[in-house]
Structures are given as C-alpha cells and as structure tokens.
C-alpha cells in the first residue's frame, strides 16, 4: 500500500483497522543467495539495493534483536558530507545526495531536515583545519563555507560569540545542506521497501557461527533460529563486527566503544540547526518533538554494555552549558549508549575479506548514520559483483597492510 | 631594576593574598619550597635516604616527615622530596652522589603548594576530588597524585583536618578557584 495523505485519510475514516504490516515477519528459509548479518540501516539498505539495483531478491537480513535497534536506533542523526580526504568526500557525498530524495524513493518520510551543520572553530588551529576542509570540499564539489562569528550567530542565534568566553568562537564551517533525519524511520523505511521486494527480515535471529567449506569459503550461518545457507554473506554488524568476524577466524582493525547520547525535555523550537564543536566536544540539535539531542563522547575502554559513565555525559553537558549558557536550566530526560566500532583511521571498511564469500561493511564508528544510503548502495554493488564499487574501493581492509590509511581523525579530530 | 635572583613571582601571588578566612575551611598559599623528584629502585632509594638523612616511606602513598623535610612516595620507584628552599641544593647534591642508577631532578619551581584546613576541608575537596577522604580511607600521612576537577594534584593529608596540595604552577589558579568555589557555601 502506498503511503499518502489520502490513504491515511481513508484509514482515518475506516477507524485505522486496515494497516497491513509494514514488513513481513517470515520464517527463515534454508538457503538464500545473500545473507546480510545486521538489520541496522546499513544492512537493510544493502538488502534494498541488492533487490532493487541488482535484482537479487532472495536475500535475508538477520538481526540478533529488533531491526534498527543497534546504532541506527540510538544515534544523534547528524548528516553532513564535508569530510577532508577525497575518498571520504566522495563516499559521504554520495550518501548525502541520496538522502535528498530518500523519502520519495522509499515512500517513507524519513524527515531529512537539511537545516545546516555548523562546526565551530575556537582557536587558530581549528580555523586552519576548518579552512583546509572548506578548500578541499570545494574542489570535490561538496559545499561548505566559512562563517565569521557574526555570520555564525546570525545563522544560529543562541550562539554566544563574545570574546571573553573560555572557548571563544573564531568562526565556523557551515554545510547548509547538512542536517538530520528521523533515525528509526530510516530503518523502517528500508525494511518496508526491502520486504516488499521479497527480502526476508529475520529478527531475533542471532548469528552464532559461520560455516566454511573445505576451500575456506563461507557458506552458511548458524543462528539462534537454525542454520541458514548463503551464496554470499555480508556482515554489517557495527559494534559487533569483531564478534561476528571472529566466527570466520578473522581479526579486525576494530575496537568497540560505548558512545552516549542524551535528550533534554522537549521545548518549543529554540535551536535552528546542528552545531558541533570538536575542540570542546559537544554537538547539539533539536528534534521534531522538541528535545535537544546531544551527543557525548565515547568511554575510554572497549565495552559492549550500551551504557557509559556519568563523567562522559558530564563532560559533554558542561561543554553545552559553556557554549549555550541559556540551556543550563534545561533538563536531561534520557541518556543512552550505543556500541561503536572504531577503526585506527576513523574511516569505514567496505569490501571483500580474506574469506571467500564473506563481505564486510563496518568501522563507521561514531559517524556512519549519515552514510546509510550510500553505504548500502556501494556495498550492495560490491556483494553483487564481487568487486568493490569504485567509491568503496579505497576503503578496503588492504589499506592497513599497505599503509594507505584514510585518516579523518588525524586531520579533523572527531567525526560525527 | 630589582635583582632578578630576588625578584620572584609566585604563581599564587595575587590569588593567594585574597582568600577570606572561613570557619569551615581556610585556604592559603604555602611559601616556595625545594622539591626533588627522586626516581630509583627501592634499594638504591634506601641508600639515598641514608645519604640525605631522610627516611623514605616504604609504603605506597605515604609520606614521612622529618623536621621541615618530607618524603612522599608517589609511585613504586618515585618519591617527591619536599623541604625548605635552603635545603634544596644540598639535598640534590647528596642524592646525586649516591652510587647506583637513579634520577634526581629539581622540580622546585614546577609546582606550588597550597593548604586547605578546617572541619569542612574534606567536604570542599569532595566537590572536586573523587577520592574517599574519610579518615579511615585516607588517613593522616597518606599522599597521592589524583585529580582535582580537571587538574592533576598531589594531595597529602598532613593532619586530621589539614591537606597540602602540590600542583603544577600553571594549574594553581584553577585549583585555587575551584576550592574557593567549594568553600563558598560554608560561609553561611
């Protein structure tokens, strides 16, 4: 059923009794052409594009829990593409372009809201880094512009640009078409669209082992719902990637950390865009319901606990209060954590693995929500054709051996 | 021009002059001191102790006091020797004469010291320091590096209600201001 105001009105009149399930909840089949491990945004998008663009519809997406319950369901939803390196800019901008029409593509309103993402510069070094990004971005066709403090304030009136702040604002980079989207809707939209094309979404289906044949090829997964054979297996398990890959005997260049976020109580619109400060580590936007959505840092240690320390939130909230002293009396409503898989160069890994038949898409760390459509798109291509999509090619595992890292962290501190 | 050797600027010169005494906890800047960071394996350290006539604490995180001099054990192979300024030269020279591998480094100016004392001293520190400062957990004579707010300090309980804080000089104003903030409510 196509979603529209009309269909909604029809349902309203009929008392909302129609509402068919947005996705099927089938029983697992014994064999699929492709099994995707992980029903987060990236895994579901991969399945969707496999079906849509490569005609591979005998696909299952497996999740140990409920679909979208990983980092997709717990991120601060910042979308931007003003990354430094050419390879990154190409990847993230590919995704960014897709966001712009995703609602229509999926017939599901993912509420992409390009309200502008602003990154603050607090010292001379910040300004140098930001300007370097702006120049590199322009060359890559990724819009990003420098704002003076006054221009920054005009764009985001709550900013305090007085020079006697502990961390004064010397200026900012603004990507006007950056913004946010409704994270859950992204997962649901992809799930609905993929399911409609025949993709089976198997929830509560934890992958517990990966079977390999005599040649070493990965041929099946053992799950909490039984054995499922697969022509190809794509692992898109975010924080759990190391765990799943270990089932195939592979060690990954990953560490999993808790990353926290929090929301305030909802208030009337008071914050018009997304603001990030890498130097004092805070980022902030306001959701459709009115909460201030605030991202905190990662805890310092590897953990799968989906919870973090109070001192981490405290460090973020003192930064928020310092930047926006008018929010000091606002109250934290809920705090939660996700498990982010972090690579040494803070760039993702997308591609083939040393195990034939096994593909991996991981390492998005603290910043992969923005890449969801693009990541699924290039990964689907990689799985379908067996060769990396040109945009994905630089993000191979191989780069750790050769030393061709794509180090966004070194160049830009934090990435969200 | 003033004699540069005599004209010294204490990092808490301005702030230290201004603290209001309070019944709960008083805060004061302590005078300059000689400080030596002594690093050596314990056996060698013992020889040094004998040479300088200042017994070194054997237990971790404990201080020994002898007259005006003190030795704080901050790590398995690390002691901080504190004494009056005049003692500095001789302390260092003797320590360096001791055979055996060791590191003796003059850090007199690296830090400055302040003191917080009074019945509410523990509460004031507790506003910024995550350690358990109950007398049973942190008895008189205990000393350790730790954090006060966002600054590293050496905290030493020199008497039941008295703490000496050693802090790197550029962090001293921050530490001072934190403690002032913590004291405020006890003026009521």
């Amino acid at each position, binding site marked *: 059923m196509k*979603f529209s105001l009309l269909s909604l*009105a029809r349902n*309203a009149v009929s008392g909302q009794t129609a509402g*068919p*399930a947005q*996705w099927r*909840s089938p029983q697992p089949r014994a064999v699929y052409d492709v099994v995707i491990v992980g029903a987060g945004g990236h895994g579901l998008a991969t399945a969707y594009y496999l079906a849509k663009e490569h005609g591979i519809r005998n696909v299952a997406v497996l999740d140990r829990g409920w679909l979208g319950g990983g980092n997709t*369901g717990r991120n601060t939803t910042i979308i931007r593409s003003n990354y430094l390196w050419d390879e990154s800019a190409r990847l993230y901008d590919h995704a960014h372009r897709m966001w712009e029409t995703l*609602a*229509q593509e999926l017939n*599901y*309103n993912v*509420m992409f*809201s390009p309200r502008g993402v602003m990154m603050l510069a607090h*010292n001379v070094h910040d300004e*140098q*880094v930001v300007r370097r990004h702006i120049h590199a971005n322009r*060359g890559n*066709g990724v819009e990003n512009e420098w704002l003076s403090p006054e221009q920054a304030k005009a764009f985001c009136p709550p900013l305090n640009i007085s020079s006697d702040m*502990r961390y004064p604002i010397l200026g900012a980079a603004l990507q006007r078409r950056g913004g946010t989207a409704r994270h859950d809707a992204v997962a649901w*939209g992809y799930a609905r669209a993929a399911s409609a094309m025949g993709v089976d979404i198997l929830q509560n289906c934890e992958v517990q082992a990966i079977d390999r044949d005599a040649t070493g090829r990965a041929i099946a997964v053992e799950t909490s719902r039984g054995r499922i054979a697969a022509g190809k297996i794509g692992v898109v398990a975010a924080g759990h990637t190391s765990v799943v890959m270990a089932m195939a005997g592979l060690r990954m260049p990953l560490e999993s950390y808790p990353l926290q976020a929090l929301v305030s*109580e*909802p*208030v*009337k*619109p008071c*914050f018009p865009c997304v603001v990030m400060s890498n130097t004092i580590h805070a980022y902030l936007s306001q959701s*459709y319901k009115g909460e201030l959505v605030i991202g905190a840092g990662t805890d310092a240690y590897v953990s799968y606990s989906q919870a973090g*320390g*109070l001192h981490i*939130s*405290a460090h973020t909230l003192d*930064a928020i*209060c310092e930047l926006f*002293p*008018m*929010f*000091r*009396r606002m109250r934290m409503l809920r705090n939660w954590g996700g498990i982010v898989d972090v690579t040494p160069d803070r760039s993702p890994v997308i591609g083939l693995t040393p195990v034939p038949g096994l593909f991996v898409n991981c390492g998005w760390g603290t910043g992969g929500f923005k890449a969801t459509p693009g990541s699924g798109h290039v990964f689907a291509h990689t799985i379908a054709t067996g060769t990396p999509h040109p945009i994905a090619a630089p993000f191979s595992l191989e*780069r750790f051996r*050769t*030393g061709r890292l794509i*180090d966004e*962290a070194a160049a830009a501190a934090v990435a969200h | 021009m003033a*004699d*540069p050797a005599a004209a*010294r*600027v204490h990092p808490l010169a301005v702030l230290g002059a201004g603290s209001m005494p309070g019944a709960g906890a008083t805060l004061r800047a302590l005078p300059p001191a000689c400080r030596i960071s002594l690093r050596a394996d314990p056996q060698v350290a013992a020889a040094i102790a004998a040479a300088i006539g200042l017994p070194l604490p054997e237990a971790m995180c404990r201080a020994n006091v002898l007259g005006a001099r003190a030795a704080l054990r901050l790590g398995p192979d690390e002691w901080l020797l504190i004494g009056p300024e005049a003692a500095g030269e001789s302390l260092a020279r003797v320590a360096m004469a001791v055979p055996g*591998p060791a590191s003796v*480094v003059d*850090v*007199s*100016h690296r830090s400055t010291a302040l003191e917080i004392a009074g019945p509410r001293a523990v509460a004031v520190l507790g*506003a910024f320091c995550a*350690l358990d400062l109950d007398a049973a957990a942190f008895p008189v004579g205990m000393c350790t590096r730790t954090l006060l*707010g966002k600054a590293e300090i050496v905290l030493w309980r020199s008497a039941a209600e008295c703490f000496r804080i050693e802090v790197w000089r*550029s962090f001293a*104003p921050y530490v001072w201001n934190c403690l002032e903030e913590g004291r405020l*409510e006890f003026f*009521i």
Partner: protein
Amino acid sequence: MSGAFRTASGGRIDRTQPILFGFDGRAMTGFRGDTLASALLANGVHLVGRSFKYHRPRGIVAAGSEEPNALVTVDRGGGRLTPNLRATQLELRRDLKATSQNRFPSLDFDIGAVNNLFSPLFSAGFYYKTFMWPASFWKHVYEPLIRSAAGLGRAPTEPDPDRYLHRYAHCDVLVIGAGPAGLAAALAAAETGARVILCDEQSEPGGSLLAETEARIEGRPAAEWAAGVARALAGQDRVTVLPRTTAFGWFPDNLIGLAERVTDHQDRPDPRLPRERLWQVRAREVVIAAGAIERPLVFPGNDRPGVMLADAGRIYANRYGVRVGDRAVIATAGDSGYRAALALLGAGATIAAIADLREDPAGAAVEAARQAGIAIRPGTAIAGSRGGHRVTEASLRRIGGSDRVERLDCDVLLMSGGFTPAVHMFSQSRGRLRFDAALQAFLPGKSAARERSAGACNGRFDLEGCLDEGFTAGAAAAKAAGCGSPRTRRFARAGAVPAPGGFLGAVPGTGKGKAFVDFQNDVTAKDLQLATREGFRSIEHVKRYTTTGMATDQGKTSNMNALAIVAGALDRPIPEVGLTTFRMPYTPVTFGTIAGASRGMLFDPLRHTPIHDWASEHGAVFEDVGNWKRARYFPRSGEDMHQAVARECTAVRMAAGMFDASTLGKIEVVGPDAATFLERMYTNAWARLAPGRLRYGLMLNEAGFIMDDGVIARLAPDRFHVTTTTGGAPGVLNHMEDYLQTEFTDLKVWLTSITEQYAVIAVQGPRAREIIAPLVEGIDLSPAAMPHMSVQTGQICGVATRLFRVSFTGELGFEINVPADHGRAVWEAVLQAGAAYGIVPYGTEAMHVLRAEKGYIIVGQETDGTVTPADAGLDWAIGKAKKDFVGKRSLSRPDIVAPGRKQLVGLLTHSPQEVLEEGAQLVADPHAEIPMRMIGHVTSSYHSAALGRSIALALVADGRSLLGQTLYVPMPDRMIAVTLVAPVFYDQEGRRLDG
C-alpha cells in the same frame, strides 16, 4: 483560608504560614508545605496544561514525580526560567509564579486544540506516511508546520545565573527512598556504625507515611514516627540524610548519581548556596526502597481534568488537607480506591460510588468503606467520562453484563489500576527483572550489582512487611559492607494489610473515545494496537512508533498498561513481550547540575606562563594553544597584526627579538640507559652526541608518521633535557612511558616532566650574544666555546640557567631556561639589556613566519598525522645505521614507499604580494573544474618582511620532482598561479646562525 477546597484541619501543611502564589497570572494562596499542585487543587484548579499532540485539556493526575500532565514553567527572574516542572514536586514558596504550557492564546482557549478534531489523521506514525508530496513542500510547508508543534514549555533564552556544585561521597550503605522500608533500612545500617546515606526525592523523609493517618508504628502515629526516625538518623555523625534528593542514575561499580535540589524551594536563597548539587556516591552496598507507583485505568476519557489516581486523591486529603473534589466517583481494581474514598469522605466530599473491577471485593478497606455507607459496585468497570475542562460525569458498566451504563455526576473521578513497583534503579543496576504472575508485576530478580530491594518496590505492599524487609535489607547491606549486625527490631504497628489487586491494560467493555495510555504523549490504546498490526511487534518498536513511554515521565504510570495492551494484541504473555530499557535519569536532571562548577574559568584550566602577566601588561594579543595562552603578537598603538608581525620579524633579522617559549614541553631523561632509550624513541642517533651538545629530534608513532619534534640537549652522559611541542607535551611523555614501562623494560632510565620547572626565553637575532653576555656568569658564550646547537649551565642575572644555543629563526639564538619563579625578572632584565640594541618581544605569529622563511616545520601544521619523515623532507634526521626505533618498520610499508606521496615544498605566488590562504588546495590544471584533481595543499602561508613578498609551504604529490613548475591554487573566484621551490626561502646556506 487558602482556597475553597482546603479541609478545616489535618495534613502536614503549616496553616500559620499562608503563601501568595501565581498561576497564569492569577493570584492564589496556599500554605507552607503545599506543592503547587496541592495549592492549585485547594483553590479548585484542576485544568493545568494541554497535552502534546492533541492539546487536550489536562489536569493533575498524581501527587509525586510520576505526574504526566501537570507541567508548568516557573520564572524566578534574572534568567531563572525553568520549563516542564512538575507541579506535584514544586514546593510552594513566596512569590512562586508558574505558567501553563503548550497552549495559545490561553489555557482555557487553545487554538491547537483543533488538532483534536483531526486526531484520526494523527494516528501513530502518521508523519512517516505523509508530507512527502510534492517533495518541494517539505522544506517550506510541512517541516516548519511539524516543527512549530514541537515541545511543551519554552526554553530559557538568558544565561542561568545560578551556581551548581558536585560532591563525591562514599558510604557503606546508600538507601534510596525514605519511606518505611528505607527508614528501617537506614536505622539498621546506622546502628552498625556503617557510613550511611539516605536520600529521598521528596521534601521530607517518610514516603508514603507522610499521608498515613491510621497506622501507628512503635506506638506512635506513623508520620510522627517517620519524622522522629529521620531526625535521629540525621543527628548521627556517620549518617547523611538528603531530602529533595533523587537517585537518578546507576553506574558501574556502585556509583550512584543523586540530584539534590538545594534552593528552589527557598523563598530567598543565599547566593552562596548552589541551586542544585550532583552527588556521585560510591556505595559499597545499596538498599533500594523506592516504593511503588499507582497505575491509571485505561478507559475512554480517562484524561479529563478531574480524573486522578486514587492514591493521589488520598494523599492530597491526608498530607495536604485538600479535597480534590466535592463529589467523587471511584474506579478501582484494588484497595487503593477504598482508602481514597475514606480519605475523601473524611475531607468532606461525597462519594457517588466505587466501581470495583473485582467481582468479590473483600478485606479491611472494603469493609471500612461499606461501614461508611459508600455505594460499592463490584464487577464494574469505568466505561467513560464526560466534561469539558473538568470531568462532570462518569459512566459505569457491569462487566460481562448488559450494555447498560450507569451515569453518575461527579467533579472528580479517582482511578486505581493497582501499583507498579518502582524497579527503575534496580533495572539500571543491570539486575534482571522477573515477572510475578500473582502480583502481575515485574519485581527485582537476579542482582548484578551490590544492592537489594525492600518494601513496595520489591512487591511488599503491607506496612509491617515493608518495615521488616527494610530493616533486614539494611542489616544485610551493612554486614555485606563489613560493618557488623544490628540488634533485631520488630516494628509493632497497627493498620490493615492491603489485599492484592490490580489491573493491566485497557479496561474491558468500554465505549468509544480515546482511552489514553501515555497522557503526555497522547498515546491511546488504539495507537498501540495499530502499531502491532503494522508489524511493530517488538515492544521497543511499539515504543518508538507510538512514542509511548518517551515523554518526560518516561512512562512511569503508563508502561505496564502499554505492555499489557501490546501483549494482548500479539496474544503473547507479558513477560515474553518484556519491558523497554530503564535508563537514567529516573526523573529529569538539570544540565547545570551535571555540569557542576565547571563553567567559565572553571570550565577548563587556563594555563599561563611565568611571563604571561608581563605580556598582558604590555598589550600582547593572545592565542589559545591547548590550555595555554600564548602571546601571538605585541601590537604597538595603531598597529594591526600584519604590521606588528612585520616589525617583530624585522627586529629579529636586523637586531634581536625575544620570545616566551615557556610552554614548550620539557622532559628530563635520566639514567644510565638514557641515550639508548632516546635511540629507540627518536629517529635520530643519540649515542655519540657529546654532553654539552644539542640535536634536533624527530619522533614517530609506530605507524611511521611524525608525532612530535624538538631539540634535545645532552647535559651529562646519563642526563638529557628533551623538548617537545607545546600541544604534544603530555602525549609525548605518555608515549615514552608506555615504551619504557612495557616494551623497553631492560632500560634503566626515568622520565620527569620539567615543562613547568623552567621559564624559557628565546633571544634570537644577530645581536643576541651581545645582549645576554653581560647578564651571564660562568658560561663562555664565544662561538668556539658555545657553538650552534650546544648547551651550558651557569647563571644569568644571578639565577641558575640551562642556556641553549639554538635557533628556530635561522638567526644566532639562545634559549634561556631559568627556574620559573624567576622567569619574569630575567625576561625584563634581558629586555632592558637589549633595549640599546633594539630588541623587541615577538609572539607566536612572528615565530611562525621566521621559521617558515627557513622552512622549519611545525608539527600539527606541516604535518597532520599522515606525514612521514620523507614526506616532510626530514630523511636526514633518520639514523640510518639504527636497527630499530619506534616507527621504523612502518616506513617500509608498500604505500609509504610508493611514489605519489605528498612532499613538503615551498610556494612562491606569481604576484608577490598575494598571500595564499592556509589550507588552500593545489591543482596542476589552471582550467580544472569541480570536481577537480587536487594534488596538494598549503600548510603555512605568510607575508615575509625579510623577503618583501609572500611565502608558503605546501605538501604536494611528488612535489620535489616538480620544483620550478607552476601549479594553481583554486579560489572561489579565480586561480592563483604559484611556482614550486625548495622550502627554504631565507639564508639557504645557514650563515646567519653564527650571527
């Protein structure tokens, strides 16, 4: 009198202290001891707000922190505006001014209420299905529309002037909740001499006992007993009693976050007090005694003002002396309704009837109601309500009977669906919940932390049981904390044992209309059912699709009903469907409280050098580098930065300049293996560096990329003075310690930070030697005795110094290290001595220009964590004969030796006055169009006074093979042509180093 609905006597309010307060501009009176909610109710005000989505009129539902509806904004003036405060928790104080929220223009007449008419459109998830066409409407029509509907209260717009403070605390036993169970637990633990902290979110300890009028404990009226116990506890040395303090979060290793509200309730708070305090309590053991929360019944029209929780009605009567209405209908599934009925009767109300979902209600409470002549309708459900801004009628229907509905007039409708144990903190501690089928409730199951639950939160609903369980838990906690055992104590008490009872889900057999589950987020039973039909089968999906439980009350009153409805719709047992995750905070916590004192200058330490004050007095403009303030330039009157820097640079090249280099990191490396250690940590060779000599040191990380650099002095065979970059100092020390302690454990060497021990004054320029010569004692400054890259110790101005002959400008230069206290005096002495020679102080900006003229790199500017020594043209700094050093192996990786890497070069713009922008990119093709192939970027760019033109450094792919060629810097409006040159612009031969 403080309102028409105030009882003549009773309650814990102080009737001698009337308080004037305002609500939506209307002045009213209450008493000390009231909450805003009780005071409003005493004045007959039920309508206090509008709901989120449908803007339905809403009233006060509860009496505690679980309140979903009664959210108000309080403005205390001067920036002290707080939205979304619960009227049920706001203690009345003088001049309290509260306003209702989410309505326009007024609470009585709210335009937003039209949403209610369109509510069939606004079913769960409606956003996702619409607003997509035409696509262009999204940005300018749909999204603004949706956004404008967001939120409840308004955010403050001014900075908050109040203070906040933290307190770390440690205890043997932390007791959360000071009801009978918590008080008994604290008593038991305190008796053993344990360190005890007892906290409760309410204004006074006592919990449910504060509204208890019948029971007696140990011979005293319950409330009096509670007050006595609390007083006795607070009087003990090792016990801390914290009222108005919410345990909001549970963190690993029994760290509990408590939020204490210190001054909001005070008439005129002392500004020296923090407004709120965050306690971070490390507790050996915790007793959770958090009580239970009453559940509403889900029936159509259950959200009208005047529809309240039964126990809230009782509490308002008993604790606050307020009659919540004159004529009550009560719908209940257990004893609570009867207890409320009796309390209301006592407060002067009429009870129209009690509808009890149970077929055969029995027990003491029921008997008492019968005795009092109250009409009881067993086996009867509440079917609906009527009314506009206040309930006026309730309809009852016999379960399983005919469709006949009994309509009863009323002005208040009390409901009770039973009690939900408050397992929030237990669950946060990662304990596993178990479903108790008899109680139809989740209870604490297997513990994960060192804690135990007692009382109503553990499913004990009788007072005696709560007291005993609390005492036992307190004793066990103290024992587990190693504190011995208390004497046993039995709490003789009188009063009835409540009969179990309760109901989960939507009341059966009701009529049409919206039956709300989550009041604040306007989620109805139907929404939940719709969600399950649409395939949202996980409770987590249902939550997110419908937003049930996501409002500011986090579903305290609604989650169990929602769960039961979903379980029903899925036809699965409740425990199989399960609850959503309990997360911190238990109730919302102020950002300021969590930030604490960390603000302004206490936000982050600001580090000043010993020479800072002098610079500041002499007009320096500073820049932030890490936590340091560094003088950037010293403008003279009328000069801009460009002019000042040019003047400073010229002075250094022509005469001399002095620079405060105190922020440079410094590490003293001492021990017999010091040289060997440095061999392994730096790329360079150190073994044969003679004492008294300096060498440039290059440090790599293990991946082979440049990490830091600096000059290293060998003071003695076993003693080096290492310098690092300002920002890199802590990282370098940590990196060295790491290898020393865990990798090169065979080495006897120790590292001591001496960054702050020394003030460092760089004196640079052809006259440098002459200037310092008169000040120096015991050091032979002659070029022979003290050549470039050497160090001597001696005295300067009578102060001990480590004097380096070193240059970061290309001129003859010295760096004077003196003990920090003497830094300023020596600085002034050098300045005075240099006056005759034209010495000037210069800042970091001139320093950058001077070193760039010489092609010296700055780590962090020419490098960004991806640059190797070869890239930076520093191959010469690698000790070729060395077997190993950190990073060596990485330098032979395929892509590190591959062609095409970016290399450091110099750039000269074709028009000499053009200064490139740092960070600008380089392309080969002047006609390149976006997206263009970029082959490098500008790392440093300045106007050089010495050369009378601009210069720049850049990293360019294969740059060294392109020297002499022209490349282009694309700017938004044009291409700038540049020639690639070797990255040394000034004094290529290095003659000036000798003055």
